[in-house]
C-alpha cells in the first residue's frame, strides 16, 4: 500500500516513463520510527527483523511496477507538437539568417559571398530533404494533415529563399536593371548608308 499512497500523493507528470522518489513520505517515516522504537523496547531479534524490513524497502523503492500513465490522447498531442516543430523549423531559423544577412553587409567580400551562398544553399537543401524530414512522422502514422505540414515547411524554406534573393537584390546581384542586359543588346541596324567627302575638282 506504500506504493499506492506514493502514487496517490504525488501525481506522476505525464511524460515520465519512470521515477524514483528519494524522499520518504510521512507515513514511511512514521513506520520506520515505530519499528525502531519497537526494536529498542523488544528483543534484538525482533529489532533486526524490523531493521531488515526497513532496509528492504529502501527509500523510493517500490516493488510494484509503475504503469505507463501517458494516455493515448496525450501521444497524439505530442506527435502533433513534434510535427509542427519540424514544419516550423525553417521559419524559426529565419530571424537568425536575417541577422546573418544583415551582418554580412552589401559589399563584396569573401564573407558576404559565403553567406549569400549559404542563404541559397540551406533552403534548397531543406526543400530537397522535405520528404526525409517527415519520414519519421509518416512512420508513426501521421497521415491526415501531413500535407499541410509539408506545405508549411516548404513555405518556410521559401521565405529563406526570398531572404536570399532580397540579399542578392540589395547587393546588386540580380539583373533587374536595363544596365544588366545592355551587353546582350544587338547593334542597331542602319537605315541609311552614306559615302562621300570633299570633291576633287
Amino acid at each position, binding site marked *: 500500500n506504500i506504493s499506492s499512497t506514493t502514487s496517490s500523493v504525488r501525481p506522476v507528470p505525464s511524460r515520465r516513463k519512470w521515477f524514483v522518489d528519494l524522499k520518504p513520505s510521512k507515513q514511511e517515516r512514521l513506520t520506520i520510527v515505530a519499528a525502531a522504537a519497537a526494536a529498542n523496547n523488544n528483543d534484538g531479534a525482533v529489532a533486526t527483523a524490523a531493521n531488515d524490513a526497513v532496509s528492504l524497502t529502501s527509500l523510493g523503492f517500490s516493488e510494484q511496477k509503475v504503469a505507463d500513465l501517458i494516455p493515448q490522447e496525450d501521444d497524439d498531442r505530442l506527435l502533433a507538437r513534434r510535427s509542427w516543430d519540424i514544419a516550423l523549423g525553417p521559419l524559426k531559423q529565419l530571424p537568425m539568417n536575417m541577422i546573418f544577412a544583415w551582418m554580412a553587409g552589401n559589399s563584396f567580400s569573401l564573407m558576404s559571398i559565403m553567406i549569400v551562398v549559404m542563404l541559397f544553399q540551406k533552403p534548397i537543401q531543406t526543400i530537397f530533404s522535405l520528404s526525409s524530414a517527415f519520414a519519421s512522422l509518416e512512420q508513426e502514422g501521421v497521415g491526415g494533415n501531413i500535407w499541410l505540414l509539408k506545405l508549411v515547411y516548404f513555405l518556410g524554406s521559401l521565405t529563406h529563399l526570398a531572404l536570399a534573393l532580397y540579399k542578392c537584390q540589395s547587393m546588386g546581384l540580380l539583373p533587374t*536593371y536595363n544596365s544588366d542586359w545592355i551587353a546582350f543588346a544587338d547593334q542597331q*541596324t*542602319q537605315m*541609311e*548608308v*552614306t559615302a*562621300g*567627302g570633299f570633291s576633287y*575638282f
Partner: protein
Amino acid sequence: MRWRKVFETNEYGKIDRIIWYDQESVIISGQGRRARSLRYADGLEVWQLAATTTNTNSNQDTVAKHCQVIKNRYDPGTIHILSDDLLWSVSSYGEMLWSIEIPIKSTLKNLFLLSTSQYVIVGSLDSNSNQLQVTYYSKQDGQQAFSSSLPWSFNAKDSLNKCSTMNNLILCSNNDELSIITIPTTTDDTNVKTRHIKASSKIEQIRILYESTTRSVILIKSDNGETKIYQFNKKESTSEWDFNELNIQMKSNSFISIATDKNLAGQQILEASANDQKLNFHVSTINEQTLTNTRSYSVELPENMGEIEYLAYSVVKNTQLVTLRMQDGSLLVIKLADNGAELILHRDEALSSIISVETFDLSLSITQMRIEEEFGGTGMFSMFTKRISSQVSQLISFFLRLMDLFTHGNRNRDYLDKQAALVRDEFNLNKILIVVTSVGKVFGILTQSGGILWKNFFPNFAPFEHFNAVHVPLFHIRSAAHYTHEPLASIVYRDRNSLHDTHIRTFNPYTGDLENNLTTSSLPYHVKRVFLSTQAVDEFCKVLLFVDTNNKIHTYPPVPLSRALSTTIPTYIYLFDKSEQAFVGYYLSIDENDQKTSTNLKEVWRVSFQNEEVINIHTRLSSDRVHSAGIVLGDRSVLYKYTNPNLIAVVTEGIDYQKVPFVNIYLLDTVTGSLKLSHTHKRVKSPVHIVLSENWIVYTYYNQRYRRYEAVSSSLFEGEAQYNYSTFSSFDPIEPVIQSKAYILPYGVNAIQVTTTEKGITSRDIIMATPNGMLIEIPWILFDPRRPLDLTPMDREEGLIMYTPEIMVNFESVINYYKYVYNIRGIHTVATGLESTSIVFAYGLDLFFTRVFPSRIFDQLKDDFDFMIIGWSTVAFVVGSFVAKRFASIHQTKKAWK
C-alpha cells in the same frame, strides 16, 4: 646612317639654302630667318642665329615671302641673306656681322641679292615706275652706300620665276631670249650693260651649274628640249663678263652637274640620263670651248625609279661620286671608277612621304583553309563526309610532313620561312601594310619584320589635293577573308600631266602584281569623288563608284548600280565643294530591276559656310565598332549613347568682327544635313586634330591666349531611354544630349588616333604623336567628358575619375620608348584577331609599328606564364589524390578492425 638632324615642322624647318664648307655647312631656313651650322663629323649644331626682326606681326600678313641667300664669292666665309625687307650677314663661324631693315614701301619689292668684294647689292623692283632700284650696302657694316636705278620690263612675279643672279649678273629669260644684265660693282662705274642670247624656242629654265669669281657655267633649257651650256669668263680688271657656248650634245631628259676639285685641272662636267632601269653617265673635262676626255658609264638599277630629279656630282679624294634623287624618292649614290659605275647606296626615301595606309590580313595556311572547308558544307551528310575526308587528309599531310622532316631536313628552310612569313598566325596579329607615298611609289610591308615585300612605282602619279594635304584613295576591293580568291587593293590617282585624267590601279597586296582587268587609265568622265561599293559583286570583289563633275554616279568596272549598292537601304552621298564652301547631300535611289551602270544624283540638302573656311573634314574609321549601346551609371540605370554612324566632323576657321581668329567644330549628319554639335573656340590656332569614334569626339588645337595645346572631348547621348533599340535612322527625332570637357595637354600634337579592336569591347586609348618624337597612349577615360568636378559615390561606382584640367602623361605610356619618331603625319590602327590587341602604325618622317593593349592582356596568358609549374603541379595533385585515396582506405580498414 651616322647622324640625323630633324628640323622644325613649321616654317623655320623649311630649308632655303645650304652652303657647304669643308668641315660644316651653314643652313638657312625659315624664309631666311634662321641660320645654323651643322658639323659633318658628328651632326652637332655648332651655332644657330635668328634674324632680329621687330615687325614680326606685319610679316605674317605678307603671304608670299621671298628669300635670297648668297655666299660672298670674294669672301667665302660671309653669307648674305635677304629675307623680304631684312638684309643680314653672318660669318661661317657663327657671328652675326650686321643686320639692317630695308625701308618698306608697298610698291617696292626686294628681289635680287648680289655681292662684290666691297658691297652687298639689293635689286628692288619699283612697280610704280617699272624701274629696278639697285642699292649698294657696305659689306663690312651694312651701311647704305649709294643707289642707282635702271629700267626694268618684268613684273615682280616674272622676275622671281624667270631670273637668277650670278656674281654681278642678273640673268632673265624672256620667251626665247636670255638677257644678261651686268650690275656695276664700283661707285665710279655706273654703266649698266645688257646683252642677249637667243635660244631656239621659249626658255624654260636657267640653271647656274658653277659659279666662282672668275668663271661661271650656266645651263639654258628650252621647252623644245634643247639644252645649251654657256661658259662665262670675267674680263680682267672690269666687272664685265665674256661668254661662249660649250659644245655639248645633250639628250633632252639629261641632267648636268659640274664638279671641281683642287687636284683637277679644270671642271669636270657630268651628264646623266635615266633610261628605264638604266642610268647613263658621261663625264668630260671642260677646256676652253670644248670638252675632252669624255668617258661613259652606265649602271643597272634594281627597279624602275623614273626620271632623275636631282643630280650632284662631286670628286672626293679622287673618287667620283654621283648623288641622285630619283622621281620615286630614291636616294642613290653611285661611284664612278675605272672599272665602271657601281651603285653603293640606295635608300627608299619615299617611305617618309606616306599618304595612305591600308592593312590586309595575311592568307590562311593550307591547314587553316582545310578547317574552313571542313565546316563549310550544307546538309548533314555532306558535312559529315567533308569532316571525315578533311580529317583524313590532315592526318595524311601530317605524316607526309613528318616523313619530309626526316628525309630532307632543312633543305627548303629558306623558302619555307619566306612562305611562313606570308601565312596568317594564330591570332591574326601579323598583317601586310600597303602604303602609298606622295611620289607614286606603293610598298607592301610585312608588319612582323618591317621588311619591304614588294614595291611598285607609278611614274605618272599625282595625288588628289585634300585641303592643304594630299590624298590617294586606297581601297580593299577584295578582302583576305575569301581564301579561294586572292585579295585585291585599288588605288585611284590623277595623271601628273593632265590632272583631270584618273588612273585606277588594282593589285594583289601580297605580291604587288597588277590585276590588268581592273586597271585602267581612261575613264570617260572627270572624277569628283570615288568610294567603294557596299556590296560585293562578282567573285567577292567590290566595285568603285565614281561621282563625276556632272553629279552622275558611275561604277567601275561597269556593273548595274543595283548590284553594287543595297536596294533596301537608301544611299546618301555628300560632297564638299571648296569653291562654294558648301556641303551638298545627294540621295541615290536605285530600282531593284534597274540595269543602269550610272545614274544622276538628286540633291537633298545643302550646308554652306559663310565667313568661315572649312579647313578639314574628318570621318570615323570604317572599322569603328560600338559594342555597348549605353553607359551604366552609378545607380545602375543606362545612359544610351547616340551612335550615329553618319556623322562627320567639320573644322572651319575664320576671323570674327573683332579681328579675333576662331575655329569652329561641327558634327554634321550626312544623311539629313543637320548639325548635331557646334563648338566655337576663339583665339585658337589650327591644326585641329580630330578623333571621331563611337558616340564621342576628341579634338586638339593650340590655344593662342594661354599658349598651350588643349583637347576638347564631347560625348553625345540619347538619354535615359533609347528611341529605337533595333534600328538607327538619322531621321529619328533624337536631340542628342552633349557633354563636353576641355583638357590641357602636356605636349603638342602632330597626329591623333584611337585604337581599334575587333568587337569594340576593349576600352579605347588615344594614340597621340608629339613633336618631340613620342607616341603617347592615353586612356580615353582621361578624356571622358563626364569626369565630375566633385566625385560622388555614384560616380566612383561608375569608375569615373575626378576632373582635373591637366592630362597627366606617365612616361610608361610612351609606347615607342626612346625610339623617337619625328614629324608623324598620321597614325593607322587596325584590329587583330585578339580582342585585347590593336595594331598601331605611325607614319611621317619615321615609321613606327607596335601593338597596344588598351585594357591590358585579358584574353591571353602573360609572357611569363609558367606552363611547367602549372603542368607539374596538376600532375602532382592527381598523383597525390590517388595516393591519398589509397592511404585513406587502408586507414579505414584498420579502424574497422579495432
